């Protein structure tokens, strides 16, 4: 029975990748190119990625859920190029995932232990959700183990750890004040590097690109000081926002549904956190359906979900702290005044000054003329004189 299964698997892998993923060859190549672009890799990297996905034996992935809403998983399921279920069943071997698994109970926990033993040091650990730490972490238990223990146990032999979602990245929503469970991010529990993919939910392609980077190059992508991959989180939303021109020109929506809001003006004054939030939302978008499909594009201010201290902490309506460009005190008008030529008063002042100067000059010249012969003191016509 076991042997038969193995033969079936071999036969499955013998088929071309696009068949296995249920895509056309062109669609598959586009997917590879998209990921290479998302990662900001140079030309030729798409071929490397393609080779890696085609040839790599599926790495085992263990996906843990702690304090969260499963939104990250839900959004991953809606990735379309290719669909995630194809990807996770075919490109990776998803050996443990509480939402997607049919199994339950001890059988399910056994699958995790088995995957960890069989792929010791080679599997990817993905953690979704915050980890409660108060009272030794009793607020989140799976199969009798606390989240802290599970995370430490699984991370011990993992090749790499990825924290998906804001909750796993720094505690996210569960960690907001008063934080009764002492929720915190994965990297404060583990003493090894963790790649954070924050967002609520994060863009699935940022996660996929990180995984594919690992598959292709055997390393995790470069990260910033908060452990976020630079390819996705190195630029302010504000700097790539399609409404940025409105910000620069001083055109703001002042309240929801007003004229400016309907015309698609900048949402800064409605509390948009784009100016202090690092993420690639404006360029990668969500849902694979084209332009405008991201929060700001739809007319809602960014809530700063990828930014610790902003998302879930600052009220939505409060103004963002501007990190790059500050708006000027006043803005240019749409129709600039172009000047209207000389007006009567202005011409009169110039004429008066010119007249007075000409008169004074003429008087002075006449007096100087009278002062001849040369080098003689000028005529004394003035009352206020000086002495030498």
């Amino acid at each position: 029975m076991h042997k038969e299964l193995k033969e079936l698997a071999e036969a499955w892998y013998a088929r071309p990748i696009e068949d296995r993923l249920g895509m056309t060859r062109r669609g598959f190549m586009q997917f590879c190119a998209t990921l290479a672009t998302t990662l900001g890799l140079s030309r030729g990297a798409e071929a490397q990625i393609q080779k890696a996905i085609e040839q790599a034996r599926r790495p085992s992935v263990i996906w843990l859920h702690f304090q969260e809403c499963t939104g990250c998983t839900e959004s991953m399921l809606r990735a379309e190029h290719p669909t995630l279920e194809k990807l996770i069943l075919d490109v990776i071997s998803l050996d443990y995932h509480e939402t997607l698994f049919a199994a339950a109970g001890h059988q399910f926990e056994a699958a995790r232990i088995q995957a960890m033993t069989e792929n010791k040091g080679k599997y990817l650990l993905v953690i979704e959700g915050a980890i409660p730490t108060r009272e030794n972490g009793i607020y989140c238990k799976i199969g009798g183990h606390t989240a802290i223990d599970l995370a430490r146990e699984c991370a011990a032999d993992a090749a790499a750890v990825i924290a998906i979602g804001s909750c796993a990245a720094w505690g996210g929503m569960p960690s907001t004040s008063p934080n009764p469970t002492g929720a915190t991010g994965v990297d404060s529990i583990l003493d090894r590097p963790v790649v954070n993919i924050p967002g609520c939910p994060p863009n699935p392609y940022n996660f996929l690109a990180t995984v594919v980077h690992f598959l292709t190059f055997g390393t995790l992508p470069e990260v910033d000081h908060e452990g976020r991959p630079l390819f996705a989180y190195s630029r302010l939303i504000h700097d790539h926002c399609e409404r940025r021109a409105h910000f620069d020109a001083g055109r703001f929506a002042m309240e929801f549904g007003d004229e400016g809001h309907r015309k698609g003006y900048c949402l800064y004054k409605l509390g948009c956190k784009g100016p202090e939030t690092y993420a690639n939302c404006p360029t990668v978008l969500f849902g694979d359906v084209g332009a405008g499909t991201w929060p700001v594009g739809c007319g809602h201010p960014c809530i700063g979900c990828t930014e610790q201290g902003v998302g879930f902490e600052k009220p939505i309506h409060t103004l963002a702290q501007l990190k790059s460009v500050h708006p000027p005190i006043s803005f240019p008008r749409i129709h600039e005044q172009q000047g209207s030529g000389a007006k009567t008063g202005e011409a009169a002042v110039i004429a008066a000054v010119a007249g007075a100067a000409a008169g004074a000059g003429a008087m002075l010249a006449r007096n100087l003329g009278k002062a001849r012969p040369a080098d003689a003191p000028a005529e004394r016509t003035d009352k206020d004189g000086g002495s030498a």
Partner: protein
Amino acid sequence: MSSHGHVEHAPVGGRLFTPVTFFLAMLVILALAVLGVRFIHGLGAVTNLNDGYPWGIWVVADVVIGSAFACGGFAVAALVYIFNRGEYHPLIRPALLASLLGYTLAGVGVLFDLGRYWNFYHIFLPGYAHVNSVMFEVALCVSLYIMVLWIEFSPAILEKFGLKHARKKLVGTMYIFIGLGMVLPMMHQSSLGSLLIVFGHQVHPLWQTMWLPLIFLLTAMLMGYAIILFESCVAAAGYRRSVEVHLLNPMARLMLWLLAGFLAFRFADLIARGALGYAFEGSLQAIFFWLEIACFALTFYLLRSSEARRNPANLFLGGVALLMGGILLRINAYLIGYDPGAHWSYFPSVGELVVTIGIFALKILAYIIITRRFPVLPREHAPATH
């Protein structure tokens, strides 16, 4: 400048509060009132500036023309220290005073026109320097020159307060500042022309040339000599002193040679660029071009012979005509010949005019007060009655 000990300077003395100084002070106060509005409500509230004409008379008159007016010190210093014509030494200190006032107020005048004036000190911080910028060169050079002028003039102040020791120490190092005082104005007066080169085709071909730096430098020097004619005559008339015709006559002659050279160069450039034809179009620019040339030509007529130059009235009017030529050149190049595109127009507002008038009034007022109280003008040897 009193290192040549043979020139004695003395305060003119007399009352400070006269109808003339009162009137000038009123003009200054008017300007301050307008500036109050400008600093509270912004440039738009007071000026007629717009995006097409971001530079109005506050730049062209107060700074570009004002600093050219202030080239007297530089022009006479060139005569005395470079061409070693020591006989002109008595002219230096009053010329320096005029330069000092002109440049200081030009520097202050820039502040009025700066949108973000509170950042003005950035010019002195190397971290902000953009060394390829003409504007940076002008700004830094003018700021440094203002300081140099104050140092050059300081012997007069030290004399006034009897600080002989300090004065002696200062005079020992003065050659450095005299050198700087020659180099700095040559740098920025030419750069005021380079600024226009950067404007490209927006400046009318009658004025747009790669030789603008030389044209601006030469006219600045010419205006420096002209302002000495003007100032000497006005000071003589105002204080009832003798006009220094024995100095002004030969200086005016030198000035005419320079003027002839300048005009020859100006027309040679126009012909070489094939731009002279524009002067014969029926345009506003052509009219103002000929007005400008007419002023320069009038200077020649008024100061044509040594006989004519012995008449102080001619020296005065000749100086005025040359100043008018220099003024028109600058107004023409910066405003009349400047075309930012269709529909843009600019004419100074009453507020702008009041400020510009106030700045010039302040210069005259300060000149009167300082010459009456500080040793600036050469001592009159014929004793005047009181």
